[in-house]
């Protein structure tokens, strides 16, 4: 990316041009596939309870299943991006869909925990990793003016599906037990193949070809030089700490609610409530930061701190044994969780500069995948030690808070204006197409259009200052 130059193609020459037509079909494909990846992952809390009962294993041992899946998704995102360049995006997404479905189908036949680790964890995680990033990149590449809307629409599926899937999964588990439910979910995941089929085979990302020609594949691609920079390291540390605690509610809140005494569907709806406000949090935080009153880093630390507080309040609110209180806290938590994922990605170009973003994000995702891997089992272990989830959630919330505090140590945090990014973005003739890059989300599995807007604004500014053209 550091060496590449961005060429633009004149667009809008017909019905097949970006910003319309087939692009909206791809948005639908992204909607469906993202819901089947992240909505599904967020519904795994229902299965957690069933596994604990069936296998009679500790909470910690069961937690590894979902955390391996999550970490694999983050880890293999990089692979997915690379494969898109080497091969056809369509092929990669369809393979990813097939693998994720296969993993769940095999999981339905599991007789011991290791089977679940390998099938539901590694195999499905690999599939999810191959699906998500290419799908997002495809949608982004198909739009220019309406990109933010398209991607935002695609991401709204996460909150919606999290809302719908929790009670649905509970119903499936009650009718068919977890084995049958996983089998059916595996079938549902195969629909990602249909989403992948919608990607036109002629869409290609030529980035890797350029880089490998220059022979600087690994060092550029992964932007290892970033490891020597303090802002990047601080940010990576903050995001890693965040990752330790961020997923714990998705995997353990249902079990905690059941333990407190709520029935199966009530517990599922507590989780759904978080999903619903997730959508609003995303949109509201994007809109609010667009107002420009506050710096993005400040907003990020605000939402992250609030999310940490609400995670800690979850077990406290259950002490009241009041369903309403739990729902309210869950709604608030969902809102902050969605809001923070919006901001987490928006901060990225300020930390590493736009041209190093892809490699930097890849590296970031590698680093944070270990937190995703360890966070939930740690929470499960705490539950095994203490007998309930209070300690788990408090620790998870404090990790999120710690991440927030770490962000405050970013350089120039306390200044009111945005500092200049580490490296000046490479100039282009068309500011809009600067955003046509292969992006990966590194900070969290969710992606947000916020970055593009920020990048657009930045390149507009540099344009106006009249630096040298491409």
């Amino acid at each position, binding site marked *: *990316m550091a060496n*590449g*130059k*961005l*060429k633009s*193609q004149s667009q809008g020459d*017909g019905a*097949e*041009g*970006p910003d319309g037509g087939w692009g909206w079909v791809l948005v639908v494909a992204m909607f469906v596939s993202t819901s089947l990846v992240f909505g599904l992952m967020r519904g795994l809390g229902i299965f957690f309870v069933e596994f604990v009962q069936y296998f009679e294993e500790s909470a910690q041992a069961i937690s590894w299943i979902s955390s391996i899946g999550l970490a694999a998704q983050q880890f293999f995102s990089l692979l997915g991006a690379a494969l898109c360049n080497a091969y056809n995006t369509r092929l990669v997404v*369809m393979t990813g869909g097939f693998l994720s479905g296969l993993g769940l189908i095999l999981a339905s036949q599991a007789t011991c925990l290791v089977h679940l680790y390998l099938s539901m964890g590694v195999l499905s995680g690999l599939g999810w990793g191959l699906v998500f990033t290419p799908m997002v990149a495809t949608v982004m*590449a198909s739009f220019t003016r309406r990109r933010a809307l398209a991607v935002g629409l695609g991401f709204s599926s996460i909150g919606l599906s999290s809302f719908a899937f929790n009670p649905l999964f509970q119903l499936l588990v*009650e*009718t*068919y*037990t977890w*084995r*049958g*439910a996983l*089998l*059916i979910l*595996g*079938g*549902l995941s*195969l*629909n990602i*193949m*249909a989403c992948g*089929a*919608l990607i*036109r085979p*002629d*869409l*290609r*990302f*030529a*980035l890797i070809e*350029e880089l490998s020609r220059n022979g600087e594949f690994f060092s550029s691609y992964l932007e290892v030089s970033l490891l020597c920079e303090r802002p990047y390291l601080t940010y990576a540390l903050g995001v890693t700490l965040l990752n330790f605690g961020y997923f714990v509610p998705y995997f353990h809140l249902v079990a905690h609610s059941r333990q407190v005494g709520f029935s199966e569907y009530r517990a599922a709806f507590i989780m759904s409530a978080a999903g619903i406000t997730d959508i609003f949090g995303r949109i509201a935080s994007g809109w609010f930061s667009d107002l420009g009153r506050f710096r993005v880093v400040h907003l990020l630390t605000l939402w992250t701190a609030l999310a940490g507080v609400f995670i800690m309040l979850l077990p406290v609110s259950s002490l009241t044994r009041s369903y309403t209180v739990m729902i309210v806290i869950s709604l608030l938590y969902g809102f902050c969780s969605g809001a923070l994922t919006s901001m987490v990605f928006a901060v990225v170009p300020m930390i590493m500069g736009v041209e190093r973003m892809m490699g930097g994000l890849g590296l970031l995702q590698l680093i944070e995948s270990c937190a995703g891997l360890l966070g939930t089992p740690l929470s499960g272990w705490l539950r095994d030690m203490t007998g309930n989830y209070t300690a788990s959630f408090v620790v998870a919330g404090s990790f999120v808070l710690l991440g927030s505090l770490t962000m405050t140590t970013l350089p120039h945090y306390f200044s009111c204006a945005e500092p200049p990014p580490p490296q000046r973005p490479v100039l282009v003739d068309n500011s809009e197409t600067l955003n*046509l*890059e*292969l992006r990966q989300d590194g900070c969290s599995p969710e992606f947000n259009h916020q970055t593009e807007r920020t990048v657009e604004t930045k390149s507009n500014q540099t344009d106006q200052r009249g630096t040298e053209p491409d």
Partner: protein
Amino acid sequence: MIYSADRNCGSNTDAIGSGQLSSNEHQERPPHRSKYLHLSKDLMRKFLYFIHKCQCHVCFYSGDNKIENVELLNPVNLSLECIWTGNQNKQPNITGYWRKGGVEIQDSRVPVDPENQQYTLKRVFNIVSEEHLGNYTCVFENEAELDFILAVPQIGERREKPIVSYVGDFVVLTCKMEDNKPVPRTWNWFKNNGTDKEQLFEAQRYDITVNGRSAKLKVKDVSEADSGVYHCAAVYNISTSTSKMHLKVITIWEPLKPFLSILVEVVILVTAILIYERSHSKKKEAEGTNACFFSLF
């Protein structure tokens, strides 16, 4: 109010005494609380409220909610007492009697004279075995009634929905007596066989684990014949308390049906999309437009 009597409840429990109790005072407990004596949180405001004196084998109980639940473990002489504060009519005398299971108990009719503006009806019942349990009602004729339901501690959680399992898999049925209820002497498991209940014993396919308040029945290698209604029974000296659950055994074909239909739907969608695209691109080639080709960076 839930209250149960115990052989050892004797010496230490004193009557709390009578008096008008407001709702704030209902947390008071007797000085030495017998293990099985506990009070419910709701309390009547208007009426007198005694907590009884417990002497060996005789326990007193009275109250004024419309229905009172009395939990018993052991045979006991139970004294039930109803107090009614009367109404504006202030009748000089009233007839009171007792009913069991809706039927008036013979020779239970007595005239009741008001004392300090209250009418009291009291009777001692000899509760020895299961047939003595049931619904007892004290009646102030044409004026007021109070029900006492005498029963063994009931198993709290009842699973309404059937437990599902697959042919060849194992399934564990659990029954648990709540922590605030006394520990059963033992547990038994039964399965409905036609109209009869057949007791299950530890066998090759059945594993029974009893752990004080909880009991588990593990059925291994289930088959469709294992479907049906199962009962767990908590055995107390006086009677047993049962809870039933429904086991449903299904074959893999059950979830396979929706799975295969989803599979068919995916195949149809993918083929349709690919076919559409092939025909569409052939059309495009015929028209001579270029495919979109974005090269990034």
